[in-house]
């Protein structure tokens, strides 16, 4: 199969280290299927990033580079998996049955992942205040009571969380 000039170093890296990466992942995850998937996704992610692909030839420690990317792939996998399980658990807790199509479910999970990622790094109370207001629709007075803070603090938390989300949205859009 002809390989374009850009990806040849990656192909060499694949040949030289894919097997090693897979067994490294298997030792870590304890699961050969998962290790195979993760190893594959690691190379796909490098391929999807033109910057990484362009600089592959310069990388001196390919294994350390690969494990760094593999960790990120795994982190994303874990986040998605954890959120999906949390979502199913939350659905089970609803007193009223909630009917959601598979398609809607996928969209909801995607949105939840984005919200979760946006709120990441904010303080516990800040993100709680924001979610209680925006998802649960609670009044500030009730949020203040639940969090044991003043209403003016709730207002500050809201502004802080909103600003944080707006900044991230704009960064992503750039």
């Amino acid at each position: 199969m002809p390989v374009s000039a850009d990806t040849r170093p990656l192909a060499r890296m694949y040949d030289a280290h894919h097997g090693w990466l897979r067994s490294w992942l298997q030792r870590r995850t304890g699961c050969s299927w998962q290790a195979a998937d993760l190893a594959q996704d690691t190379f796909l992610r490098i391929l999807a990033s033109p910057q990484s692909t362009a600089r592959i030839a310069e990388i001196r420690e390919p294994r350390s580079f690969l494990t760094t990317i593999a960790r990120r792939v795994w982190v994303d996998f874990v986040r998605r998996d954890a959120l999906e399980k949390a979502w199913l658990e939350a659905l089970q807790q609803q007193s009223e049955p909630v009917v959601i199509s598979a398609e809607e479910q996928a969209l909801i999970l995607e949105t939840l992942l984005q919200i979760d990622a946006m709120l990441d790094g904010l303080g516990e109370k800040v993100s709680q205040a924001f979610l209680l207001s925006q998802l649960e629709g609670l009044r500030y007075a009730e949020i203040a009571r639940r969090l044991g803070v003043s209403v003016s603090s709730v207002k500050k938390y809201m502004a802080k969380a909103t600003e944080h989300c707006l900044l991230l949205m704009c960064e992503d859009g750039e």
Partner: protein
Amino acid sequence: MDNLRQPRVEVLRSAARWYALLCSEDVTERQRQDHSLWLDANPAHQQAWQQVEKLREQLQSVPGTPAFEALRIKQLQGQSRRTVLRGLALFVGGTAVGGLAWRQAPSGNWVDSWTAGHRTGRGERRELTLSDGTRLVLNAATALDLVETPGSLMIRLYEGEIFIRTGKRTDGSVTSRELQIHTAQGIVLPLGTAFTVRQLDTDTQVSVIEDSVELIPVQGNGKIRQLEAGQQARMSAKEVTVSPSTVQAHSWTEGMLVAVDWPLERLVEELGRYRSGILRCDTAIAGLRVSGTFPVDDTERALQAIANGLPVRIQRVTDFWVTIKPLADPEMKNI
């Protein structure tokens, strides 16, 4: 670059403040009008407000209550990406649930310890048997949360000490459920075993009684340290220091404290965990070496044993304020 972005950040901040105000139940008509004026004043304001609307749409596109609960459950499991990226700590077991649960806190004793699901007071010890047969014993002054999912069990230890013997099936095989103990410094992963974990001020102390456990410090760049039976380790956020376990680390589960050539100071500190009030020892005798077994459920007897075996006396200011003094107290001679 930063200079160019500066005004935009300011505008976004203003937009966020407006949004926080408009979401409030006591927003006035006057404030709404002011907001309209602000929007009209500058196209950049309108641009920023479009982002706010986009955010609001996104939030409204999910069913509120289950979405809130899902995010809450996820947060409780502590999947903080920044923490996750810091180390390889979540390369654990076959299933991915659980993940990282600690926060970056100066010590384990952060505010959640007050809202923890399980806690014991001083001098109190409690035993829990979990659904898979895992035995969990909380030592005195311990606080933890349990997060159970079908495939995993996560314990977040905020303060104090626990003993764990992982569950076995009736045929004697070890259960497949993944167990993780998270402390302020990292994760402890048992490999079918009995062990203790103690949250100290700046470290986590782990003693293995049977089989082995793995220790993963939060900032250890993914390094995993395996600890075998009879070993004890201190884990900081960055590294693990292993030493042979010199005492029966879990003797407290039987109500005994075993000291082997300890400075008196340490024994007094340990006994202090099991009684209310202040227990101290005079610096002049802090370094006296002491060995023995001391009952933790009856610290009075333990104190008596100390007084019988060492050249010290027990000085009671009140029952809640006890100091161990040298037998020949220089201050006494002056009286």
